[in-house]
């Protein structure tokens, strides 16, 4: 129950967030932060046990029929992520209070943020694949809501849509992968799966692998799906710092790490995962230092680091350095990148711009923020005495221990990428804070509030603490690494700042030198490299092309199938029905013995049938609407009579009522219709005749087939027997509707209500205006960014 409460607390916070904001005003963020901090404290109390190698499992049966349980599984990896989500979460609540201090809908923002936090905690604590997937989807949705928070701006809306389309498509593929995985391993429960054998030799392995990989790549913004992440910078900065650097984008990495004991170890894993990771690492790094916008620089460098993490997982099988590097780098990145984003937001808040060319010399005005920026920037650049340095050293050690054919390529790419990330770190720290005083409106610069500086400072202290005394992380880090590792013996991490003169140290020196060189050559390189940037080609263009294609397709199908002509609608539906049902009937080759006996048919049945046929024939011939409707009505009443005579009083009664109502409704509409003029050409008329004849023939054969091939019915006798015994009703039809199949009825009346609301909405709709009479931009559905 304890872990259940931990993952539900955020949802409770989300429920009360708007009310809390209304009551506590400017302290809402501070108050709300108590929840994540309390969760952080509680989770931290597990650290000694987890570091000692324990795992904690809590299980609540949820949908036992499908093996879906509310299982919570806490091991080193889950705990590391959960601590990051709650700890940074608390800081973000406080930071958001400072950042959105004059926002009137701050309660709504806190609601979304809490929703996300709860889902993310649930995701990392989930011990069941399906539960994990549900939380995964909630993080996608809350990310969508947060990116689109400033919903008045087209940029925000488009970025939110892009993020949702990409992550949710990946999510659907992931669901397929998880189901395949569950069926391969015989369970959806992680403890069971992880305790079982590795699945690399299973015949379905490749399918599960690619599906899971697709989910992870889209979520963690890997090439070629990385484009949504820079776009997501349209979100308020607290969101960028929290979701789009420290936590949510790591969900894909987390998933790969979580499943690597099951899936890693094959060549497919090695080349595909490390390939996508390395490509992302390079692309992200290349784009990061070419931007001028602080947040975009940071976003692309996040892409690069996410790529590094994925690459490390790719080469992680049997390579304990890779797993250790992945754990330390994940932690280091969350600490420094969260801080840098918060600093970028604080600068934006104080000066009104995030353009590094328009900022300078702010260090004197904001000494604390500058200090935090130096620490975070040095960690990002991988300078000794900070945690980022330890992570980078381990990463080099890992690429040096990769399979022989990859060592040179991966190490070279890692050095180049790290150098470029180092350059972007220098840009973020040096440009705004040092040099001559520069800002759009220097007179109005105000020092950031405590709320805006608290987060970066706290994270900076941690970067420094773990950088100075990395051995603090040995026990806990080993536990996290062992949750991921596919190695013979357990990993025992021994972190230290100084290992002597080693190859990784030399590589680090090369990296820093390259970064410095690039920093000074940046201005000269920007122009020649301009054509290489992905604005005019590459993944973003593919995304836009795909989106345009979908719109074109929808446009085409709407024009042809839903052109506003009722006759075409009916003809389309009926033709499709005849072809599909008729085709199936022929395909199954049902024998239809044409032997109908009329001798037992009573005379009045025959008379009613004749009445129906004659009325139907007249309905097609009348030129007056009223007459045609009357003729149709008599068809309906004839059918109702037949129902009654054949012993289906419930059906007959309903049919009678419907016919009455139909007449009333039609009488109502009649006055609104234009004068009837037959616009049906001969060709149209012939076509409708064919369609009508097709439907008639099909129905005849269906009825004959149904009566000639009576299915072995279990249900009819069962319902008949149980109607009174189990459901205390003698009218079987009604008992089926409200009891045996009540759930269907519930669905139907829901649909009915929605249709009713739809009719109301359509009849009130005036094209070109929204509900308040405000003109609506008709091109709004597309993109305009």
């Amino acid at each position, binding site marked *: 129950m304890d872990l259940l409460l931990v993952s539900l607390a955020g949802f409770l916070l989300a429920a009360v967030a708007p009310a809390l904001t209304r009551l506590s005003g400017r302290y809402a963020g501070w108050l709300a932060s108590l929840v994540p901090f309390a969760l952080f404290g509680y989770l931290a109390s597990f650290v000694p046990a987890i570091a000692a190698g324990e795992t904690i499992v809590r299980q609540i049966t949820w949908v036992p029929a499908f093996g879906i349980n509310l299982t919570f599984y806490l091991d080193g990896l889950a705990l590391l992520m959960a601590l990051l989500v709650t700890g940074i979460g608390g800081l973000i609540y406080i930071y958001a209070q400072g950042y959105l201090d004059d926002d009137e809908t701050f309660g709504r923002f806190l609601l979304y943020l809490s929703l996300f936090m709860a889902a993310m905690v649930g995701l990392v604590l989930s011990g069941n694949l399906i539960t994990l997937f549900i939380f995964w989807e909630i993080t996608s949705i809350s990310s969508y809501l947060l990116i689109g928070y400033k919903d008045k701006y087209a940029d925000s809306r488009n970025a939110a849509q892009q993020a949702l389309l990409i992550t949710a498509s990946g999510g659907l593929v992931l669901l397929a992968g998880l189901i395949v995985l569950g069926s391969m391993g015989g369970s959806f429960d992680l403890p069971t799966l992880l305790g079982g054998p590795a699945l690399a030799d299973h015949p379905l392995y490749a399918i599960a692998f690619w599906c899971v990989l697709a989910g992870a790549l889209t979520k963690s913004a890997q090439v070629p799906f990385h484009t949504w992440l820079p776009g997501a910078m349209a979100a308020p900065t607290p969101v960028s710092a929290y979701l789009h650097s420290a936590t949510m984008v790591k969900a894909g990495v987390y998933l790969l790490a979580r499943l690597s004991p099951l899936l890693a170890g094959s060549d497919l894993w090695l080349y595909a995962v490390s390939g996508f990771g390395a490509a992302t690492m390079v692309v992200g790094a290349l784009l990061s230092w070419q931007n001028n916008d602080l947040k975009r620089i940071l976003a692309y460098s996040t892409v690069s680091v996410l790529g590094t993490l994925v690459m490390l997982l790719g080469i992680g099988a049997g390579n304990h350095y890779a797993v250790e590097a992945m754990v330390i780098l994940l932690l280091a990145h969350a600490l420094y990148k969260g801080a840098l984003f918060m600093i970028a937001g604080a600068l934006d808040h104080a000066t009104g711009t995030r353009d590094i060319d328009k900022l300078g010399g702010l260090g004197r005005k904001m000494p604390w923020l500058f200090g935090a920026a130096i620490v975070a920037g040095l960690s990002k650049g991988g300078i000794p005495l900070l945690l980022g340095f330890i992570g980078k050293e381990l990463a080099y050690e890992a690429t040096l221990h990769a399979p022989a054919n990859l060592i040179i390529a991966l190490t070279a790419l890692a050095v180049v990428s790290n150098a470029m990330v180092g350059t972007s770190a220098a840009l973020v720290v040096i440009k705004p804070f040092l040099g001559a005083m520069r800002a759009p409106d220097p007179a109005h610069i105000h020092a950031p509030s405590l709320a805006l500086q608290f987060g970066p400072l706290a994270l900076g202290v941690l970067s420094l603490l773990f950088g100075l005394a990395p051995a603090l992380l040995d026990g806990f880090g080993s536990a996290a690494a062992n949750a991921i590792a596919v190695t013979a013996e357990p990993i025992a991490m021994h972190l230290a700042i100084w290992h002597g003169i080693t190859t990784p140290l030399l590589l680090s020196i090369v990296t820093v030198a390259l970064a410095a060189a690039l920093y000074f050559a940046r201005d000269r390189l920007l122009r020649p490299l301009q054509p290489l940037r992905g604005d005019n080609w590459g993944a973003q263009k593919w995304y836009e092309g795909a989106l345009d294609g979908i719109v074109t397709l929808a446009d085409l199908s709407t024009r042809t199938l839903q052109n506003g002509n009722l006759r075409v609608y009916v003809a389309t539906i009926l033709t499709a029905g005849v072809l599909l049902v008729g085709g199936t009937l022929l395909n199954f080759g049902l024998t239809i013995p044409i032997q109908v006996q009329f001798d037992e048919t009573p005379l009045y049945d025959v008379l009613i049938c004749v009445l129906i046929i004659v009325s139907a024939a007249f309905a097609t011939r009348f*030129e*007056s609407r009223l007459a045609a409707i009357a003729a149709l009505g008599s068809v309906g009443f004839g059918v109702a009579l037949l129902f009654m005579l054949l012993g289906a009083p419930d059906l007959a009664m309903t049919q009678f*009522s419907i016919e009455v109502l139909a007449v*009333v409704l039609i009488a*109502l509409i009649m006055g609104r219709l234009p004068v009837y*003029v037959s616009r049906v050409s001969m060709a149209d008329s012939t076509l409708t005749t064919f369609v009508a004849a097709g439907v008639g023939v099909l129905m005849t054969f269906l009825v004959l087939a149904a009566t000639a091939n009576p299915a072995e019915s279990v249900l009819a006798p069962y319902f008949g027997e149980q109607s009174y015994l189990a*459901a205390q*009703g003698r*009218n079987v039809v009604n008992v089926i509707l409200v009891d045996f199949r009540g759930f269907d009825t519930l669905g139907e009346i829901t649909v009915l209500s929605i249709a*009713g609301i739809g009719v109301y909405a359509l009849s009130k709709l005036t094209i070109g205006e929204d509900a308040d009479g405000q003109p609506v931009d008709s091109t709004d559905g597309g993109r305009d960014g």
Partner: protein
Amino acid sequence: MANRTTPHSAAGRPPAAGRPPRLESIVLSTAARYLLPLLLLISLFILFRGHNHPGGGFVGGLVAASGFALYALAYGAMGAQQALRIAPRNLMAFGLLLAAGSALLSLAFGVAFMQGVYSKIELPAIGKLSTPLMFDIGVYLVVLGVVLNIVFTFFEDQQD
């Protein structure tokens, strides 16, 4: 074949904008006044007998709706709305709530979602109180609400 086709034009009175489309007939308006309560009673009768005899919430709702539709023909949408008192949309929502609530109520009695729960209380004309009965009343209200929502919408539109 110009004017032969619509009732209004046939009577030489094309529908004028702004005029409520009532069928102004003393027979209809008198009949509607007495038929509405009668039809409502019948609809309730059909609803409650449904468990053991032909009938049920769906048909009952349709019958009640035709009563109000008839009334609307005679007295216009406003008149019918006044007679109904509740907005059809609220009726719809309340019916859905009742139906879903009956399903959830089973949980409170410790049985599965939607499993019928029957009380010992048996009322005259209504029958044994139970969650399926509650569900059926929900269906009745939804059907009534949806149909009247459509009927009133068309009426109001014509009055615009």
